[in-house]
């Protein structure tokens, strides 16, 4: 189990690093666009489309698993806190399983969608042609990683009495480096 967890953490971290690169590229390309428009008469062709389709999609979906590993998905704790501890653990497991089912459905659907886009070689026609399909693989990657992370957390919530599903828990970032 420990090994699975470390592997998952590593994989999620790598996807998050890609998202970080997309974030910085987005900043640089937007500023370039502003500079070009104000001083050189026109924006860069296709820049907006690349940022929307590639950078934004990568930035939002690739880190989903990473965010779950850090327990930073947005949820409400108030009611659960009032439960006796056995009931709280049961709802925690249930909540993770519901999330895992939802994300698994999304993984399957977006994977089929990405494969279809690949097979027809989906492109976007604006002022220039932009290949869309590689961006679509960001979704099954992100949803797949968050499905696995939710299953891991369901398992931990069920077996470890000290499991703490909040962003401040030691489980969120065991390696603070």
């Amino acid at each position: 189990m420990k090994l699975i967890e470390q592997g998952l953490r590593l994989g999620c971290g790598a996807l998050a690093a890609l998202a970080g690169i997309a974030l910085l590229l987005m900043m640089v390309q937007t500023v370039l666009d502003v500079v070009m428009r104000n001083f050189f008469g026109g924006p860069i062709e296709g820049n907006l489309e690349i940022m929307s389709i590639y950078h934004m999609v990568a930035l939002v979906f690739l880190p989903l698993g990473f965010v779950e590993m850090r327990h930073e998905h947005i949820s409400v704790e108030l009611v659960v806190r009032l439960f006796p501890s056995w009931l709280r653990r049961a709802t925690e497991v249930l909540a993770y399983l519901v999330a895992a089912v939802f994300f698994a459905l999304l993984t399957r659907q977006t994977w089929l969608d990405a494969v279809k886009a690949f097979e027809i070689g989906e492109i976007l026609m604006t002022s220039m042609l932009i290949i869309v399909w590689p961006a679509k693989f960001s979704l099954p990657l992100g949803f797949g990683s968050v499905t696995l992370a939710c299953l891991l957390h369901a398992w931990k919530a069920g077996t470890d009495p000290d499991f703490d599903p909040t962003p401040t828990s030691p489980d969120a970032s065991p390696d603070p480096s």
Partner: protein
Amino acid sequence: MDNVTIGAVATLIGLFLVALRVQIGVALGIVSFFGIAAILNMRAAWGIVTAVPFNFVGDWNLTAVPMFLLMGYVAFSADLTSSLFRAMRILLSRLPGGLAVASVGACAMLAAASGSSVATSAAMARIATPEMLRFKYDPGLASGVIASSGTLGSLIPPSILMVLYGYFAEVSIAQLFMAGFLPGLLSAVLFAGMIITRATLNPSLAPPVEESFSREEKMEALREVWPMPALILGVLSGIFLGWFTPTEAGAVGALLAMVLATVRRRMSWAVLRDAVTRTITGTAGIFMVVIGTVLLGRLMALSGLPNALADFMLSWGGDQLTAILMVVVLYLILGMFLDSIGILLLTLPIILPVTQTVGIDLIWFGIILIKLLEIGLVTPPVGLNVYVMKGALGTLVPLPTIFRGVGWFIATDVVTLAIIIAFPILSLWLPSMMLQ
């Protein structure tokens, strides 16, 4: 079951799942999926959950969210912020309750530049509250002022809540930014006025601080403090003068924050890495809720529930003020349990069609909503900012004391809210200037 009932049942089940600690985005998404399947069929439901995430996120306008987050986190990680309180203190310490007034000013500026109420309160709790306690300030005041003033950033532009609201309500984000400026300023001024009045009437709340600063110290403070105002002014004036759009402003602001951090010799690999990690975590978290909201919006449109609610309200008389007051009550209740982005996104698919039916100005309405969300951040029992304060302060001030201290600020905020509702011109004057 008719469609309206399906919509209502799905919404209730969604809220129930949220209460059981299911992630908000997942809870909304899953009930929308089954709701759409019940109204149309499974095929349509599959089609919508497949298409929405990619088509919705791949939208240029929403890039403003991660960019503004990045700008704020760079400013925090590079510690451009800690000198604000010192500078404000040097300038304002002679006033009654001067340290608390200085905290309001520093918090307002910090929250505006960072777009994060929580991050502002956490940072200022460590800097300002211990100072106020050292000078024998009332612990409720010393902690309440930080928890409350941290919320000011949602109204003072740039603000991520405004970007999201503008996107969903289809109103100009630039106009929203300008509209929020005066109400935000008013909130801060009323906070300061309330503190000064209370400290004058009861000096034991905030004993006068015997501090004098030389001219050099004052100049030094100004030199320390310029990056944050420069950042805010740079971003806002660029939008106002039309050099860049509010969407692009986030990216310009993020780069500007990095440049300022470099000039102040605070930029490093660790700072960049920390800011980027926080930004992608925040972005992915927000957008999961956004995707759930969009799915819920589709279900709402199919079910006709918002129209039924609007008809119901119109049958009640349905003037604008009634509609606004109902939203005020709804938000104050939800504000006790949910954080601001959650409330905003959860309710917009339902209340926007209603407000359009009643004919409320959507810019003004947005400012009212955001003020309500600010209040919701400090109302018990959830009051996110209060818990953040508690976390940052440790055992220094007990939780009931912080809530007691916040009470005065909530009362002041209610006055501000009444003024915003009574005088729409306060919100709409600056945007109208911009059009000309």
